[in-house]
């Protein structure tokens, strides 16, 4: 099996699953219970938080456990906008956000907020100047995706963060779900106030994530309930998922140190090989994350390519998994200025640390023959 759909989800590490099973069966007490079983769970949860904070280079009290990327983005965006609406009702984001951000912004628009969607250029990025130009006196939040999930473009978080230091009343949220472990982000140095990451994108399990909220920044919780996660995310804590996530965090950061370079090499090599294929065009910009490569097979429906490759036990995806079931052109590619032929035929490859050059070669072989066959069928008429 060749699994090149790691931006949709990654395969959990074996050790991570083992940790989950052990924690779920041995530390099942509710962390809020007063007895020793509850105490043990609470202690385990606290230590997980401390370790997670160490790995992310932040404070334990800045780590909030969530159910994943969608929830993190929603709390960060709606939670800050609603809390600070008396300060202003203008929000800034981009037109290539993940649906969990985009839809949240659209919901806020219906609540009376004004949203500026900065338009990316042909490389899928915005500039710091665009943000500067969009800022108004009533702007309260800038929310930017760090690494775009479809094409892998990297947005200038550091520049925007530095810019926003001149505007202490504007909060800065970064959707780091795709970037974590692949493109480094330094929360303090890049002046990030809130940051979302998700466990299943770095070999943890589904249903876990971290929302970093800088000390001193407040949000309005989306749900009502108990005082868990300092009231920002009520609900009995998912201790086994959290502990497993922290393990995945450590393992993937280690793997990242070792393998990001070879991943990038592989990515470049596949790009070069596919570029030479007839009928294939590369959509990803040259400056991109090491784990994503987006291309189009002009004239062939991407679902067909995905199916054809799957028959050969190779797994890739059409645009992002969260919107792949709608057969519309990719909004991200449209935003980058590609015509309908290209934006409705895109295929995304996404890698992880364990992928090898051997797999890359097998993929190119299979892909070129698939493209050749499909092109023949399509062009016959």
């Amino acid at each position: 099996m060749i699994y090149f759909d790691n931006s949709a989800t990654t395969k959990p590490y074996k050790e991570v699953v083992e940790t989950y099973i052990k924690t779920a069966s041995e530390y099942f007490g509710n962390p809020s219970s007063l007895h020793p079983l509850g105490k043990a769970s609470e202690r385990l949860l606290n230590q997980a938080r401390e370790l997670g904070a160490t790995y992310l280079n932040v404070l334990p009290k800045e780590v909030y456990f969530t159910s994943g990327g969608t929830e993190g983005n929603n709390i960060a965006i709606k939670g800050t906008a609603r809390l600070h609406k008396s300060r202003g009702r203008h929000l800034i984001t981009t037109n290539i956000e993940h649906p969990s951000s985009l839809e949240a912004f659209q919901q806020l628009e219906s609540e009376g907020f004004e949203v500026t969607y900065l338009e990316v250029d042909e490389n899928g990025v915005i500039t710091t100047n665009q943000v500067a130009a969009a800022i108004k006196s009533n702007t309260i939040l800038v929310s930017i995706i760090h690494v775009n999930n479809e094409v892998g473009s990297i947005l200038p978080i550091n520049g925007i963060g530095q810019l926003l230091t001149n505007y202490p009343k504007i909060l800065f949220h970064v959707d780091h779900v795709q970037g974590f472990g692949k493109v480094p982000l330094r929360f303090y140095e890049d002046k990030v106030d809130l940051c979302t990451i998700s466990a299943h994108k770095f070999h943890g399990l589904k249903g876990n994530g971290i929302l970093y909220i800088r000390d001193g920044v407040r949000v309005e919780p989306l749900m009502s309930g108990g005082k868990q996660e300092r009231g920002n995310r009520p609900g009995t804590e998912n201790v086994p998922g959290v502990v497993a996530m922290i393990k995945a965090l450590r393992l993937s950061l280690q793997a990242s140190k070792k393998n990001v370079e070879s991943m990038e090499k592989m990515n470049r090599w596949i790009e070069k090989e596919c570029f030479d294929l007839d009928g294939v065009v590369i959509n990803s910009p040259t400056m991109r994350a090491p784990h994503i490569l987006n291309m189009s097979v002009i004239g062939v429906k991407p679902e067909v390519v995905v199916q054809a490759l799957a028959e050969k036990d190779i797994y890739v995806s059409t645009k992002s998994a969260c919107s792949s079931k709608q057969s519309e052109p990719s909004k991200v590619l449209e935003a980058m200025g590609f015509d309908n032929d290209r934006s409705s035929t895109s295929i995304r490859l996404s890698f992880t640390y364990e992928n090898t050059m051997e797999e890359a070669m097998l993929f190119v072989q299979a892909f070129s023959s698939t493209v050749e066959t499909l092109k023949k069928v399509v062009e016959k008429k």
Partner: protein
Amino acid sequence: MKYNHILIRYAELALKGKNRKEFEKKLQDNLKFALYSFPESKVQRTFGRMFIELNGEEENRVSERLKDVFGIHSFSPSLKIDLNQDDINEAALWAVRDALPNESGTFKVTAKRPNKAYPIRSQQLNYDIGSHILRNTSGLTVDVHNPDVEVKVEVRQEAAYIMCKTIKGAGGLPIRTAGKVLLMLSGGIDSPVAGYFALKRGVELEAIHFHSPPFTNERAKQKVIDLSRVLTKFGGSMKLHIIPFTDAQQAIHQKVPDKYEMTIMRRFMLRIAEAAAKKNGAIGIVNGESLGQVASQTLDSMYTINEVTNMPIIRPLVTMDKLDVIKVAKDIGTYDLSILPYEDCCTIFLPPQTKTKPNREKANLYEKELNIELYVQDAIERMETIKITPNSEVDKEFEDLF
């Protein structure tokens, strides 16, 4: 450009005569320890001043950490620049911009030239550097009397140093220069603050906590461990002694009239603390008592309770108002932990009324019923000692999970 050094100024050390060298050395060790999580940084001591070489570590974060180190009066991030006038000008310009990012305000340049081989005299340096800054900024003006920013330039043998900011340090004396004391740590708001103030005067700190299971639960003990960990931020690794106190407490509850229960219990605690201190080489006891705050802390109470020991008892909070103590607790990061609602051993068995004016005669009379020696000895024998380090470590039982 980026700050590459931090200059440290000592607090009070000038007063210490012959001991100065030792104090400096201690401070240097303490700094090394405090900056453990900034592996690239180096602490240097030359010609009566102390520098931290940042070697790429983030100045802001190192500065944040330095604010918790006792014995520092103030410190300044500085630029170490080769002896070349153009470079010095540029560096001074950068430092002013860093200190006044909006380029509005006033500044002055103060140059010193201990390195007399350097061709430009200090007055001329002031003028040259000031002109360079004025030429390259728009909203800045010179004010030599009350400037917003003073650009200090020191031309020394090895290099020039440029500083714009002075950040206030924690003051006090370097820890572990004043001998060892034992802190009675209950888990409330006061005792951690008392520990903090004791550390500020340079002591080496250990803590003792009285634990009465099942009347006080594991979380109360955990809370004290967590509080101790906060104190390690200021005092480095420390020992926490947990005293099993249930038996003594129950005996007191049975044998002593209600009104004297608190008084006798405190006398027991003090005796045990003294014994634990002696066993661990500590020669003083620190507690969080504040005069008149509660029944056990009236002057009469202190007089009666204090009878059982000769050891110096340091009460840093004795004249402080509760609100001031709370403020410090919030500043040093113990408040949020202290207010967690777990019972400590002082609040269980709390009699309906406590004598606010106990006297020594009665206390001694009631204690005749109790075998004091036995309880003290037993408590010390069963004392559990936990080593608390600044880096929270994962519990043994959880190790394989992470």
